């Protein structure tokens, strides 16, 4: 493995992490969704370099394509509420915990084992459809229950929709106490993102 290849690898991982950071920092949901697509693209490239060509393609089409479309759809339905103020979890706590966990995990897992010689293996399609046939079958179950879940959560009769709208309209005049605090916090916080 040449230095050039290593540099490329580092660049791809860096790009992926950078996009991920931007996902969290993005103020608007739409921007976050697009940055997520960026993460997907970098991940796909990494997968491709690892020799996982088929999954790279799928990641590109599903991860960067389908999922982004889904998010955009959901955002358009639910509205792009910008919530710039972070949660009530103190940032130092979040940082500390994660850094600690990361250090411990890396301590246990680095250095990773050497790449062993490629075993003689069946082709991807064969591995998937025959070797892991059971996984695929259960995936069908998952998709079925996922679809039921999606439909069950979203499909509504007209009367229900009206009821929801009425309920919301009734709730609107008195905004939750939290909202006022939120805006005040936002002014104090002055964070551009």
């Amino acid at each position, binding site marked *: 493995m040449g230095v050039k290849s290593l540099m490329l690898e580092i660049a791809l991982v860096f790009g992926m992490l950078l996009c991920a950071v931007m996902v969290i920092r993005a103020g608007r949901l739409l921007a976050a969704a697009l940055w997520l697509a960026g993460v997907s693209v970098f991940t796909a490239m990494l997968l491709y370099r690892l020799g996982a060509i088929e999954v790279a393609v799928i990641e590109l089409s599903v991860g960067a394509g389908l999922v982004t479309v889904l998010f955009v759809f959901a955002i358009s339905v639910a509205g792009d509420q910008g919530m710039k103020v972070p949660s009530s*979890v103190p940032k130092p706590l979040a940082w500390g915990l994660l850094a*600690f*966990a990361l250090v*411990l*995990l890396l301590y*246990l897992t680095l250095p990773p084992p050497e790449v062993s010689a490629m075993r003689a293996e069946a082709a991807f399609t064969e591995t998937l459809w025959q070797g892991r046939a059971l996984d695929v079958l259960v995936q069908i179950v998952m998709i079925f229950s996922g679809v039921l879940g999606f439909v069950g959560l979203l499909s509504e009769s007209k009367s229900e929709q009206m009821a929801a709208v009425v309920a919301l309209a009734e709730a609107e005049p008195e905004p939750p106490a939290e909202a006022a605090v939120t805006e005040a916090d936002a002014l104090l916080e002055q964070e551009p993102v």
Partner: protein
Amino acid sequence: MAGALSLLVILFPWTGAVIVALAARRNPRWLHLLAAVFAAAAAAAGLGLLFYTGDAPAVTLSLGGAFGDFTLVPDGLGAFLAAVAVVIGSLAVIFSADYMRGEAQLGRYYFLVLLFIGSMCGLVLSGSLLLMFIFWEMTALCSYALISFYNDDPKAVAGGIKALVITQFGGVGLMIGVLVTRAALGSDSVSALLNGADSLPPELLSLIAFGFLIAAAAKSAQVPFHTWLPGAMEAPTPVSALIHAATMVNAGVYLLARFYPAFAGVPGWTTAVVAVGMLTALMGALMALTSDDLKRVLAYSTISQLGYMFYAIGVGAVFASQFHLLSHAVFKALLFLGAGAVIHAVGTRDMRQMGGLGSQMPFVRGVFIIGVWALVGLPFANGFWSKELILEAGLADGPAWAYIVMLAVAGLTALYSFRMVWMVFFGKAWTGRRLHDAPAAMRGSLGLLAVGTLTIWLLAEPFKNLLASSLLRHIGEAEGSVLLAVLTNPATLLALGVIAAGLAAWWWRESLTGVANRLRFIAQAAQADFGFEWLNRQVVIVTHRTAMTLRTTQTGQLNWNAVGIVGGLVIVLLVLIVGG
């Protein structure tokens, strides 16, 4: 025969319980009758069992594995206590026919009472420690449910839960003891522990011994676990009689008596038993002296008398303790039911609002005085013989400091008993409405108990022979005639003298006011339950505060929940890295 009888003595009450529960919506008169019939049948079986005692398991049910063999062993000690439970229990049931007339939820009442009686019999008859523990817990459950019977009254509910939690807490001691026995001896039969105690490592044996002591103390309302008993006074009065005289509290004394041969050699154990008994007897008497609630006085007096029994076991007078248990069961049942008749008539438990009731209720006054006579230990009621026997053994075998205190408590007993009788039946004339003396069913129960109080000591010899079979070498005290030994021992005169002093102190109480004032701090401490009630409440408050604080960690916010996950990961990683 022994097998059939030992099963029947449990199954009669239990079957009755189920039948009464199923018939709960029928005519209440049927319920009273059904319950009384089943209780009486159980009493007959229990008395019959006394003639078929034996040390071999009469009934065996093999479960295997962690559960071992369930056996029933109707030996002398077990059969005797079963008989006490069913006989006094059935009298309480019969008494209830009048006392509970017109109450709601009679089905539930009789169901629990009968279940209670059956469980108590199972407890004393079981030859397997696990089975004993099961019955032990069942009596706790039944007592809880009965104490909280008037469950719209928060005081009754709180009293019930307190009784349950404290006795269950003690039960943990019993359970650990049983578990350790099992692990060390490979068997959880009672005889295995009795026979194998010598071969156990000393530290394990003392763990078992003190575990059992905690359990016994909690069940028998000994210091520092006695706080539940006064709260248990919220129960209907027949239930109080049942708990105090026939069932619950005897279980602790039974446990110690049963395993005394195994534990006597454990260093410090007998001293601990003596100390617990002595402290309880003293504190119970002082609290009885300063309380104005009739049932509470009786409750404290129960605690105090149980202290005598513990003390007796501690000094090795196992037979004396059981003899006193028998006497106490009879006269305390009499006193409770008598008090029940009074409370039923007057409608209050406060003795300051009574007085002069004797003229209105001569029958109740008569039997009540017989009960008090025995409680105080005046000749020749049953309490006299057993209490003298305990004090003699204490003088002969126990430490002097404990004997002196126990002797003084005999005087205190006389003092509070006379105070109680005076405040209820004598003193100022009763000016309230016309009262009825006890009705028929009540009279029946009371009369039988009064006769028992006066005569049961005549059975001392056969009783001793009955227990000798199961208590083996530890019945050495009073060779020859028990009664003769009491009469001829100089300790008897000493005790009678102290009792007379107690009586005198009440008679000349007016002139003793100065002393009483100087001792006021003791009275105040006694009224405050010597701080144990406070301690008890603190434990509850701290637990609840902790719970409330912990509840705030359930923020309901997704972000904080995620903190839990990441935090959990960090903890597990750390534990694994450090722990290897």
